[in-house]
């Protein structure tokens, strides 16, 4: 009986896998693989919010990725999020977290791993400051030439604080974009 149900599940997964692989490549990347893509190969995200933002702005670059934990440092070139700031390179720090596609019974459907990304930045001036936190996910969509394609979506929670004004909320805001090189 158990064998039959396993077979049924296997057949079901076989049916599923075909259209899935057509859409998502189903990569089982490690943190070391991510370091190769984002740091060694210098691929970065252009966060243009479905074309609403100038693609020469809002670039998320990675400077280092810990190959055991996914902790990373990087920078955001010219964030256009609220509250607005002058164009500049803003240092960010965060974590990429790999989630496996293994079920609670130890089976894999071949979906590939899933990738969460969170990062934050702080800008402080005299009696004013900005804090922003990003929470999102990445999908890798296969190589085109030497370039891994992919996209990222999530939301920013951000605040502006100043003496006498207190804390002003600018949250949540959508942030999405594509991986490029």
């Amino acid at each position, binding site marked *: 009986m158990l064998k039959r149900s396993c077979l049924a599940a296997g057949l079901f997964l076989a049916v599923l896998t075909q259209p899935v692989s057509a859409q998502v490549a189903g990569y089982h990347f490690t943190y070391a693989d991510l370091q190769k893509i984002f740091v060694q190969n210098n691929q970065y995200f252009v966060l243009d919010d479905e074309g609403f933002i100038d693609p020469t702005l809002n670039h998320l670059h990675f400077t280092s990725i810990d190959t055991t934990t996914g902790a990373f440092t990087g920078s955001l070139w010219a964030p256009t999020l609220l509250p607005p700031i002058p164009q500049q390179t803003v240092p960010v720090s965060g974590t990429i977290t790999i989630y496996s596609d*293994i079920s609670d019974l130890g089976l894999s459907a071949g979906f590939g791993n899933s990738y969460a990304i969170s990062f934050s930045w702080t800008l402080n001036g005299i009696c004013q400051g900005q804090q922003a936190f990003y929470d999102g996910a990445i999908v890798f969509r296969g190589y085109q030439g030497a370039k891994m394609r992919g996209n990222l979506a999530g939301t920013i929670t951000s605040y502006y604080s100043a003496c006498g004004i207190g804390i002003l909320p600018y949250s949540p805001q959508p942030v999405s974009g594509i991986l490029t090189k």
Partner: protein
Amino acid sequence: MLKRSWLAVILGFLVFLPASARADTTGYTFTYADLQKIFVQNQQYFVLDDDGANDASLNHLHFTSVDATDGVFTGALWAPVVVPAVAPVTVPVFGKLTIHTDLGIFGLSSDHGYYYEITFFWAHGDACEGQQASYKGAITFRGYQGGVMRGNVAGVIRSTLGTCGGGDLPSSPQPFAGKLTK
């Protein structure tokens, strides 16, 4: 002395903030009734093409009803292409739009309009094999072009595929983003 520092801060704040922000977002202060007009009466919907990575004829989020007092909504997702894959069907969804004001703790406004959160979920399948998915994201409205409000949504889907014999197969989180159209 206190008054001077207040003035300096407020002037500095006003100079620092407004110009470039208005170029990015129109700063709407929509109510739930306004959202109902846009999404239900005017039948605007999201094409969740993940910044061009998905076929734009799939992954459409339509709204059937939006409660004008609390933002609770019902709707449908046409042909979701998120993993795990399902056949191209219309999947009913249930969720909530939440309006966050731009008011600070002292009652001051940043004058950039409100912020709009969206959450929804769906369940698809039968007792032995089914998909459960929940979405959490945010919307920005970017102004009318003719009779169409433009805007975009981005966030994250968390989904699992439950199977008899295979257990719950995870595929989370996944990015999910798109733009508002009509």
